[in-house]
């Protein structure tokens, strides 16, 4: 398998499309023949990051770089940034508004889940500029 690059756009405040990019990425990984555990880890992590983009930022872009050894996903937005990453990483801590919670989101599991299901996670955030999350899942 050669390196495969995939790109997805995430729309702002559009919960009807939320999960589409992670769903498409999941199907692509399935077609490329990755095992179901690897696919599940990537799908969960990317879904959480995608939902964060919809809730907190005004959408963003997702780029996936897939090689036989590793799946790297870069999620970039131009949202407000994360003021306190340590706090945001705490399970149960959420700043999601009430209308979003009514949809079943805002459990405060987004970033913790991304960390839990990836081998590497890096958050690059600047207040007022945006956040870029880079995650890696190795093909084991």
């Amino acid at each position, binding site marked *: 398998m050669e390196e495969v690059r995939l790109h997805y756009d995430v729309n702002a405040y559009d*919960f009807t499309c939320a*999960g589409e990019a*992670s*769903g498409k990425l999941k199907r692509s990984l399935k077609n490329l023949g990755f095992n179901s555990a690897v696919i599940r880890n990537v*799908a969960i992590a990317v879904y*959480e990051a995608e*939902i964060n983009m919809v809730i907190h930022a005004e959408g963003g872009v997702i780029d996936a770089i897939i090689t036989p050894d590793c799946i790297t996903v870069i999620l970039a937005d131009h949202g407000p940034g994360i003021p306190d990453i340590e706090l945001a990483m705490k399970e149960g801590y959420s700043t999601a508004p009430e209308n979003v919670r009514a949809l079943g989101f805002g*459990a405060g599991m987004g970033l913790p889940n991304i960390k839990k299901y990836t081998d590497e996670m890096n958050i690059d955030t600047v207040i007022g500029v945006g956040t870029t999350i880079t995650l890696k899942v190795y093909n084991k």
Partner: protein
Amino acid sequence: MDIKTLKEKLNLKLLCGDDLDRTITGCYCGDLLSWVMSRAQENDVWLTVMGNINSVGVAVLADVACIVLTENAALDADALQRAEQNGVVILQTDKNTYQMAAAISQLI
């Protein structure tokens, strides 16, 4: 056990999907989507009152066998459409989540 047997034994109403031969190996209850997505196992029956489009997304990503909407929770029109596109089986019952989970534990 497969979905068809579950549907017949527990008198569930089929709202969408046709892959009723799929095997069920467990059950997960919950309405917070992040929680469900990270904890539910492949081939679980997922019991929830969340009938929105995001539930369908979570069902696809977590690879659950089917969704059962408890207490006759409604399925949104756009959720139905997304479920049909993705082949997600959704059933409905008037029982609450506890009653349904207890009944399922007798069967699997």
